[in-house]
């Protein structure tokens, strides 16, 4: 009967916080969105448990990772802990323009999303990770449908990864196929794993996949600002998207505009929250490899890393 214990804990927390004197936060629950990948779920639980520790009520709601920005904007959910530059930058910026949410600071972690291959692929195409080498062994990646050309499995179209444009801009011998979901990407890698078929797919870091399938990103011409807006930037003077994605993409937090006033203490903490790549990988591992439930994983992580998050709490606690 967990609830009784919870109640005791939360009343205790409440009375404690009351005496310390920062009970200005609203007692309405802070709504934290949960998506369908492990690190985000655990991170949400970690931050949620920190808020609870501060005496706030917290609720989690499962949502789509793209649709969530509209909900943050409306205040239906209070914040978003993982705004990936590559995957969600567009949705985030669109919502930002409409108003209602704002940037609540970056994580320490950097993100990278690009063409990627599992290690065994190197056996068939030893020149990797250079993109020219990849292009030379394009035929290794050919399948029934692609004719002689190599096959690159890009992320879902709505992630706007511009794989096709890059293939054209760099004159690569590849056909770009869009997967419909992240799960479709894993299934392809998973299927290739058995007999070590060479594959090149879209992938990102930090991600559980790194732990399951060691691999590397393909090195494209380095990202230069404007590569997606100005054709003259990059090796091909007449084309956009003729470079790799930024190797150091941001990982942001976003907050509903109303959060500041409604839960000032929690908001202050949110702005301080910052995880590193290693910490995020650790969180994902607790669920993906150790098979813990997210809330247990979060509790475990909090216990093991008190020094990390204590400092984020409002002074006095």
């Amino acid at each position, binding site marked *: 009967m967990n609830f009784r214990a919870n109640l005791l804990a939360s009343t205790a927390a409440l009375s404690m916080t009351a005496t310390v004197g920062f009970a200005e936060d609203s007692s309405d629950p802070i709504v934290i969105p949960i998506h369908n990948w492990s690190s985000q779920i655990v991170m949400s639980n970690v931050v949620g448990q920190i808020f609870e520790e501060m005496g706030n009520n917290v609720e989690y709601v499962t*949502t789509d990772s793209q649709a969530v920005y*509209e909900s943050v904007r409306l205040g*239906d959910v209070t914040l978003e802990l993982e705004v990936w530059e590559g995957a969600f930058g567009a949705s985030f910026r669109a919502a930002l323009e409409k108003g209602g949410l704002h940037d609540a600071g970056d994580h320490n972690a950097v993100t990278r999303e690009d063409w990627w291959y599992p290690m065994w692929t190197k056996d068939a195409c030893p020149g990797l990770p250079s993109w020219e080498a990849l292009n030379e062994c394009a035929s290794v990646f050919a399948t029934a449908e692609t004719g002689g050309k190599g096959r690159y499995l890009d992320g879902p179209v709505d992630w706007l990864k511009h794989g096709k444009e890059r293939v054209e801009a760099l004159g690569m011998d590849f056909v770009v196929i869009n*997967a*419909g979901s992240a*799960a479709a990407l*894993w*299934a392809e890698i998973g299927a290739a794993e*058995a007999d070590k078929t060479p594959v090149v797919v879209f992938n990102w870091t930090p991600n559980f996949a790194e732990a399951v399938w060691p691999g590397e990103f393909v090195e494209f011409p380095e990202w230069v600002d404007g590569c997606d807006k100005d054709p003259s930037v990059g090796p091909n003077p007449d084309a956009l998207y003729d470079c790799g994605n930024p190797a150091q993409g941001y990982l942001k937090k976003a907050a509903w505009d109303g959060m500041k006033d409604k839960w000032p203490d929690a908001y202050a903490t949110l702005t301080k929250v910052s995880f590193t790549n290693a910490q995020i990988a650790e969180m994902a591992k607790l*669920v993906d490899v150790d098979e813990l439930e997210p809330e247990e994983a979060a509790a475990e992580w909090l216990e093991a890393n008190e020094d990390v998050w204590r400092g984020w709490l409002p002074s006095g606690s």
Partner: protein
Amino acid sequence: MVEIASPIAPIRRSVSYDPVIIALLGLAALLCFAKPILPDFLIRVPEAWVPPLANWLDTFFEFIKGDLDTGRPGLIHLTRWFAEGPLAFLLGVTANLLEGKHRWPFFDPLPWSTVAAVAAVIGYYLGGWRLALLGGGTFVWTALVGQWKIAMQTLSVLAVAAPLAFLIGLTLGIMAWKWGWFERMIKPVLAILQTIPFFTYLLPAVIFFKVGPTAGAIATTIYAIPPMVLMTTLGLKKVAPEIIEAGKMSGCTRLQMLFRVFIPSARTEILVGVNQVIMLCLAMVVLTAFIGMPGLGGKLLAMMNSFKLGRSFEIGVTIVLVAITLDRMSKAWVVKLPVHHERGTPWHIRHKYLVMAVAAFVFFLLLSQFVDILDKVGRKQSLSMGREIDTVIKGALAIDAVKSVTETIRYVLNVWVLIPFRNALLWIPTPAFILVVVAFAWGFGGKRPALFATAFFTTVAFSGWWDRSVITLYSVISAVILSVMIGVPLGILASRSKTWATRILLVCDTAQTFPSFIYLLPAIMLFGVSDVTVVLSIVIFTTVPLTRYTIEGLRNVPAEMTEAADMSGATRRQKLLNVQLPMALPTMAVGFNQAIMFAFFMVIIAAFIGTQDLGQELQRTLAGTDLGKNFVLGMNVALMALTFDLTLMSWAGKKNKMLGLSAR
């Protein structure tokens, strides 16, 4: 690009030489042959001609929506009030009772053993030991594999959504029965609701009803309403005139008539409606996870995204078990008729099931205070075999023999069949394509469906999404043709013996309730992200109704007819071809129609594999707030599906009349 001669041929063969059809097809063929010299606007509707429907709709939706921030009046104030007030309250209550969410009435969550015990008693009451085992077993399984909490989260939403769908459906059904104008108005709306892709509901649900369980409940409710309305109206219309007159002569007022005479007399149909509501609610468990539905669906998606096939599979099994339990129980309830007790039977015998349920509940409630495992099964205690199943599935998929077979299938289907077919369809000029569809509607359905086909496909052509619509249609047609080739022979074989029929029907039930998402990953592992995977994952779903209705059609051929055939000295084959199949054809057509509807449903889900059709665009609209575009895309799917629905149902109706069978 290989182009096959013409997709028209198989259609032409099955219809008689109606001059209208010949004219339509002739014109279509002419357009095809003349394609090189056709002006561009006869090949595709030019961009400039496409009305900015999405923008108009956006403006319209924005207008009726209103604004929460500025306080501009609109629908959203009402829906938000409902979502945050009564709906949130109800969801809070069920969530508290089932999983102990911190909401009024602040009870502890029920120990799993009490729920399982009560489910077993209900099962026993409705259908004896078998249902008791199924009911109790489902919940025991759920607890033991460590999915109790998420399953209860799901059920807590369904416990609100299903009754809500029932009440709304019942009310609308009564209104449609009472007022002809209302029925005429609501019928097309229901038809659209039944064919429009679920993605089209999701975005409005989020905007109007707030992301979370509220939006999940509303999307589920809306999805489940149509059959309830239809069954209610049907049941009320079927009440015998003498019962109505008996009611009137007993001096019933209008309300008394409705609640004491009509609704109880339409019990069977209404309960069938309830059954369908439950099944449709369960079908939405995974899809609504995109908009905040807690529980099994969300977990399933998370598991799939971390490539844990084993645990996804376990969640799938739970969903199937819950679905089959609720399905069997509600069906048993439909046929359960009251039986009298002899005079003087003591109270506890007359209410023995109630007594048993209460006793079991109290017993396990008390016991679970002392035996923790009966209260909660923790993650570490659970018997989840996720990893092991994972290994088995992945191992099986990686077997060389399997791989070489799938490689061949993938190559043959993709390179020789599917891609050429798709390119051929895309090659056909738009007007020719519409003409072929109209000819099909005319040949099978008659004039009315043909008129609708013209209007619907022309609308699609002018929506600006023609190519994507054609690709959607291509997946649907390919999948349905394949499943006819699989499902019909399977049905014929199974219908030969009762045992096999029962077995195959159970497989059908399971396949239908198993969350389609779970098929996707193994399918991708077998066939890669390709058209074959898309088509085959649809096939799994569409074969079910074809098999089911083939079995049903064949087994329901009147005995005298098969006996007459036997006495005429027909061989088994002659009997099948000359007597059974012709008689079963109208029923099979209903199955065929359902297969097409399922295909339109599944093709959208297949967007998660990777497609270039309407589903992919729809999935994209989830990210933003493009209500207008979302709606236009959904309408395209609905219009194409409705064309087939109208045509085939009209054909089945005509055939039934001809054979003197009652219309379904």
